[in-house]
Structures are given as C-alpha cells and as structure tokens.
C-alpha cells in the first residue's frame, strides 16, 4: 500500500466537516504516562467513513509544552499520519525546505505533499507561528476551527442511529 497523500487530499480531509459527540469528549479521560498526559477523541463525518481522531499531549513539567493534533488513519491499516498539530512554544522550529526558523513561538504543523515527497518521516515538518492560542484548551478550540470539527450531543446520535 502506498502511504501518501497529495496536498489536495490533505486539504479535502481537513476541510471535510467533522464532529465529535459531547459524550465522547467527556469520556476522553487524561492518562498519565512517562512525564506527560495524553488523551484521544474519535471523530465522525457524515461524508465519509475515514478514521480521524484528535489527540492531546501535555508535558507535566511545562504547561507550554503541548500539542493538540488531528490524525488520519489510512483505510484498512493501522498506519496513522498527523495532518495538523497545534504546538506550544516550549521549543524552536525549523522549516527545512524553506530554511526558515521559528524561535519559541506557538506554532501549527501541517502535513504537506512537498515534505512528504522529501521524506515520509517529515510529512508534517512545515509549521507556521500563530497567536490564536496560548494554552492547550485554546489550541483544541483553534484546531476545531481550522479543521472544521463541530460538536454534537448525544440526542443527535440516537436519532441518527435509528434513521431508516
């Protein structure tokens, strides 16, 4: 299987309307492991059955060291790729192909075709600085905004499930 996405495919997945259930968000408990906390939230889409999730990581030593990301799973595999990551400002960042550097800014990673072609391990290398959040809760809110992720309550799920 060819684990590769073009910019168009990446855009399509990011712009596709997605949602999570309020119950799932409440059930997405934090787990502590090796100095950081983590949790995951499954996403749904009316337009496709692709597997998407939001994932969080929060360093317990440094509140500004975090990421909130959107991960996509290739169909029929266990192979995930991170399409977006909203990072804290605990570290600098270098865009290898553009030879540009961000110095300890909050920044947003995004998978791109050009980095994927350069090295599949560096697909999400490209990042831009942002001032749209300054902590992990705001980062999740902003990820929902740019990745078209909405919230639905439990009642809607019950109605959907019993549709003919």
């Amino acid at each position, binding site marked *: *299987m060819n684990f590769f996405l073009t910019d168009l495919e990446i855009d399509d997945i990011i712009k596709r309307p997605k949602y999570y259930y309020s119950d799932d968000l409440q059930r997405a408990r934090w787990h502590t*492991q*090796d100095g*950081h906390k983590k949790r995951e939230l499954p996403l749904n889409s009316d337009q496709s059955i692709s597997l998407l999730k939001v994932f969080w990581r929060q360093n317990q030593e*440094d509140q500004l*060291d975090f990421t909130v990301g959107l991960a996509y799973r290739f169909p*029929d595999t266990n192979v995930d790729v991170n399409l977006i990551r909203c990072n804290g400002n605990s570290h600098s960042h*270098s865009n*290898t192909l553009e030879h540009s550097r961000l110095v300890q800014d909050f920044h947003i990673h995004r998978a791109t075709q050009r980095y994927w072609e350069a090295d599949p391990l*560096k697909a999400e290398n490209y990042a831009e600085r942002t001032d749209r959040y300054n902590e992990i809760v705001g980062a999740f809110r902003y990820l929902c905004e740019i990745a078209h992720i909405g919230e639905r309550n439990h009642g809607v799920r019950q109605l959907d499930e019993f549709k003919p």
Partner: protein
Amino acid sequence: MNLNLDVLSKHLRKSICDGIEIISKGVDAYQITTPFFFDDGDGYVIYLKMDDSGFYLTDNGHTIMHLSYWMDISQLTREEGERAQLFNGILKAYQVKYFDGKLIMKLPTNIESIGNYFLAYVQAITKITDIDYLSRERVRRSFLDDLIRFLKDTYGVKARDRWSNPEFDREGTYAVDVRLDLAKVPIYVYAAWSDVRALNVVVSILTHKDWKENFRSLVIHEYVDELSKSTMKKIMDASDKQISAFYGKQQEIRDYIENEIEYMAGT
C-alpha cells in the same frame, strides 16, 4: 558550583557550534537552545538545572512526549523487546538516566568538560529519536536472513533456503523462503514483512498448490499490523499456519514445527 553563563555560552559555542544560546528560566534553571532538530523540524528541548548534588541536563520530558506523537513509547520504557533494548543501551552508552519521562545527565564541576557532556547528551537524544526508524529498517532488512539462519541452525541440511520447483520454476520466480524436509510432507516457510511481500507469499503458496505439490505452509510475519485487511484475508486463506512475529517467538516456531512433524508422522 557557580555558573558563569557568558563563559559557558562561549565554551559551548566553541566546542560544539554557533547557534547555542542559554536563556534564564527561573531559579537555577536555564534553557539551552541549539540548532538540533527532530524529524518534524521541532527543536530539541534541553535545560541546565541545579539541585543539591550540582548541575545536570534535562529535557523536561519533551523527547519522550515528542516520540509519543508517532509511536507507543511503552515499547521503549516498559516492555521487553528490541526497542527497549536499544533505548536502555543508549542510556547506558551515554550515561543518561531515565526518570519519569525525563532524560537526565549529571554534569561535572569543571566547566571545561561540560562541552563534552553536552555533546554526548545531544547525541543520546538523537539516537533515541532514531530508535523507531532504525529498529524497523533493521528488522525489515535482516528478518529473512535471520529466519533462514535460525532454521538452518536448527534443522541443518534439511532446511533449504530459496527452494524452487526444479520442474516448473528453474528461475525461482515462486521460490519458497525455506523448505523443511523433516517428515514425509515438507513444510514451506515464508517470511512476510510488508503488504507487497505478503501478497507475493500468497502467490507463491497458490502456485505451488497449483503444481500439485504436497506441503504444509507456515508464514512468519513482522509488522503484521501494517497489513491491509484484504491482504490479511488472502494470506489467512492461502496458508496453513501463521505466526505473528519472528523476533522473540523462535520457541513457538520450533514447537509448531515439532508438532507438525509428529502430526504428519502419525497420519
């Protein structure tokens, strides 16, 4: 130990490279920024801190958290296995301690040697972040060779590697990775480490069946979780037995082969 930041900065720049800066981050804590980056372009996080026993370097737990974006880090820190062995080997080689997600290196009191320690610490982070990539590539490259060696060591001349049907396949297009002649019915052993490789194994098994050969087939996987569902179905239908991994499961492989020999002797 008194720390003169200017002297230390100059020393690190001179002994390692330009682009190193030391920024004060509270009481007895300094962040050392470097031009060293992970695969995704994020910079290494390195702090110089002090406790009762002196100065030490720590990554504040960032390296392991960063790795967790792509891999299950319990494979490094909790489980037995190749990745955990590599991780512990790196910690030992570079004299880095692991505690609750943090990579910690104690520093000497003389400032002249800090450069060497700092360099070793950076190298340790680099090696640790390479573990996932290196171990996968190493396993993929050596899996088939290791399997052949294991079967030849165990069964001697009765294990024939890259065997092909002399009547129908002189070029070895559908070769069996290892043919074991241990009973009246041979066992054809295959190694599968990717989707493409698994499909080739399916084709080989079905071709040998088509040639009316009497054999039992055993497929040994590495990275079975990367197979697509459709490939998994095909290989399940085509093969008589599959074992999910080679490394760490040699005894299970031996036991299965012994049981097959006993079964075939009894039939």
